[in-house]
């Protein structure tokens, strides 16, 4: 019980934020391996950055882990097949991010044959920092918390930026989601292993794993393992949204503020998600690139909420069917958590690398409230973890006052949704600010 004692004494957090209901219905549900899909749709862009070019053609027979998309730029990541079978089409297909994306459609042959090139990279000690970065790139690993930023890019800071801290984000502050929690419970050694690999890749001495205090079991498990390592610490975080926001996490753990408009590396920190860390560990240990991920299927609209290990490219529909299907008519299907997830207009979209969960809400729960006039209660101001004035920004956005919005630091908004969540008038603050951000960026590009 040593872990919990420290947690009581030393809970860290950030300023601002909100307390949405946890709704973590699936936290005690072990990760379940999903059925092999019959057909996968693998988008050639599952990351921030340039899309991949297909390196297979229609009719090709391919195997699990075989590369099917080659990245075209530095900020990019390759894409691999998640099943063995035949390429039936390379065409644009709806993508959970919104726009249609060129995707490779593969029909599974059911054999699940592993590609010959997939073999373990060997012991961590035998790998150099560059080896690790290369294998991460080759494995197509991207930030799996949802941002999908290519991981090796994060691990290759420019030489003038000295990185001294690696933080593993196990906060999982989004309500409903438990994928990271389960991963920490079921694969704790992978997390530690992955963290060590990242620290080695960056040549960093300090590793932290930040976990919210509503996951005492994970804290305990990882603390025990961390005790055996002399430079890894588990940090207990207050359960508050958005504790897992990169900048908030760095602030909570190191007390450093990432400069406005800057990246974490500017304060010497790199943050990696639990899922990403696990993927790195898996890649090193087995050589298997990123072809599957753990996600939480949950919400009032599914019959049996679960944590599942799903192959990339499986359509949402199939995943939901394995959880007992819809509970009545679904109102909203969301990729990710309820605070930052993306609402989907179709369940035909595939699971991608950044799909941390599929949240289905019933018609009832998906009901939207009519916005009321702002009463300037300033709850959004209190909640904003970036210390912005959301109500003001939303007003500027409404009146197309983009210059003023820029002056009021609209670009510092992390779109965490705290303001919209607390707003008693139910004003779509985040959406308004997002619009302002896009307009400001468009205006800057013009210049």
């Amino acid at each position, binding site marked *: 019980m040593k872990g919990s004692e420290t947690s009581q004494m030393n809970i860290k957090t950030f300023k601002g934020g909100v307390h949405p209901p946890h709704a973590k219905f699936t936290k005690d549900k072990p990760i379940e391996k999903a059925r092999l899909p019959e057909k996968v749709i693998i988008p050639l862009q599952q990351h921030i950055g340039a899309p991949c070019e297909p390196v297979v053609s229609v009719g090709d027979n391919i195997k699990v882990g075989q590369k099917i998309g080659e990245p075209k730029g530095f900020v990019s990541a390759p894409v691999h097949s998640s099943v063995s079978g035949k390429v039936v089409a390379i065409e644009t297909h709806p993508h959970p991010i919104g726009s249609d994306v060129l995707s490779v459609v593969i029909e599974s042959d059911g054999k699940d044959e592993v590609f010959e090139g997939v073999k373990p990279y060997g012991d961590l000690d035998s790998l150099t920092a560059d080896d690790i970065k290369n294998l991460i790139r080759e494995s197509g690993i991207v930030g799996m918390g949802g941002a999908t930023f290519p991981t090796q890019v994060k691990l290759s800071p420019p030489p003038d930026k000295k990185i001294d801290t690696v933080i593993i984000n196990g906060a999982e502050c989004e309500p409903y989601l438990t994928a990271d929690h389960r991963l920490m419970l079921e694969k704790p050694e992978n997390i530690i292993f992955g963290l060590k690999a990242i620290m080695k890749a960056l040549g960093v001495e300090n590793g932290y794993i930040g976990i919210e205090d509503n996951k005492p079991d994970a804290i305990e498990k990882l603390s025990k393992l961390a005790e055996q390592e002399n430079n890894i610490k588990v940090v207990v975080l207050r359960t508050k949204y958005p504790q897992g926001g990169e900048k908030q996490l760095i602030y909570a753990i190191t007390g450093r503020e990432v400069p406005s408009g800057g990246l974490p590396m500017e304060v010497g920190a790199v943050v990696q998600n639990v899922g990403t860390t696990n993927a790195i560990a898996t890649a090193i240990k087995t050589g298997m690139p990123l072809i599957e991920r753990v996600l939480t299927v949950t919400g009032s609209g599914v019959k049996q909420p679960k944590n599942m290990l799903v192959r990339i490219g499986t359509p949402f529909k199939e995943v939901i069917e394995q959880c007992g299907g819809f509970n009545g008519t679904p109102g909203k299907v969301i990729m990710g958590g309820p605070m930052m*997830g993306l609402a989907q207009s179709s369940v035909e979209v595939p699971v991608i690398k950044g799909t941390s969960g599929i949240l289905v809400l019933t018609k009832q729960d998906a009901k939207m409230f009519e916005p009321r006039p702002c009463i300037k209660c300033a709850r959004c101001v209190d909640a904003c973890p970036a210390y912005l004035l959301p109500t003001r920004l939303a007003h500027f956005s409404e009146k197309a006052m983009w210059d003023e919005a820029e002056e009021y630091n609209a670009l510092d908004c992390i779109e965490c949704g705290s303001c919209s969540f607390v707003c008693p008038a139910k004003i779509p603050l985040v959406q308004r600010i997002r619009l302002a951000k896009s307009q400001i960026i468009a205006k800057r590009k013009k210049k």
Partner: protein
Amino acid sequence: MENDKLVITSSPHIFDDDSVEKIMYGVIIALLPASIMGVYYFGLHALLLIVTCVITAVLTEALFQKARNYPVTIKDGSAVITGLLLALNLPPGLPAWMAVVGTVVAIILGKQIFGGLGHNPFNPALVGRAFLVASFPVAMTTWLSPVDATTTATPLGLMKLEGIPTDYWSLFIGKIGGTIGETSALAILIGAGYLLYKGYIDWRIPLSYIGTVAVLTTVFGRDPIFHIFAGGLMLGAFFMATDMVTTPITKKGRWIFGIGAGILVVVIRLWGGYPEGASYSILLMNGITPLLNRYTRPRVFGEVKKNA
């Protein structure tokens, strides 16, 4: 068919269950102890004034919105608050028709002409009161004694014009002349406690407001306890200076708001023409609230100071 389609919205997808209505009704509940005490001390006419104001406020708002062809939003409770607050700011013996005039002014000039809830720069109830004070100075300064319903003066008036102090206990429980709502500090504190517990008001404004009055009255050699409990300071500090719409949205702005209002109260009470300055102090600070919002913008997370 349309119904079977999935809903798409921007994130977030869940919301806190507080709403404008809940906040408004919370404030109404918090005002009940003061209202009840008012009726208890001043009798049925006080009750008549309260009811008149509330009904007039709601009707006026509904009619105005109808005239503008807007959806009628009287159910949100904001008109009720305006009416109730105004009533609590009236002398208990005021003719009812004056209360009606004040309420109509409060709702129309104070609120609706700016576009309704959320847009008014000044606290509507105080606009109504200031209008009445300017229009009917005699009626608005005729106070009734809670003891025998005869004409009397407020403790502040007694102090200012005749130098007669009032004992603390009477001030605290409200056995004094004054407006319907301001007499009983006890009842106000009960309501305020509820609001603070619910998180519907920010403690910064009442604290800085009352604190400033206490400090300044002490500095100028007056009795701070008397000045805190006498007059409309308590009612103003907890129910009007905390009106979300007309007060700053930044924390620093709220501190300044409270301190500024405190200074104004003391200036008006000690040297001004009126014995009481709570409502004017809040109105004046309402006026500079936009400027406070503008110049007290918080430092953005990670904002780097220039030249640093």
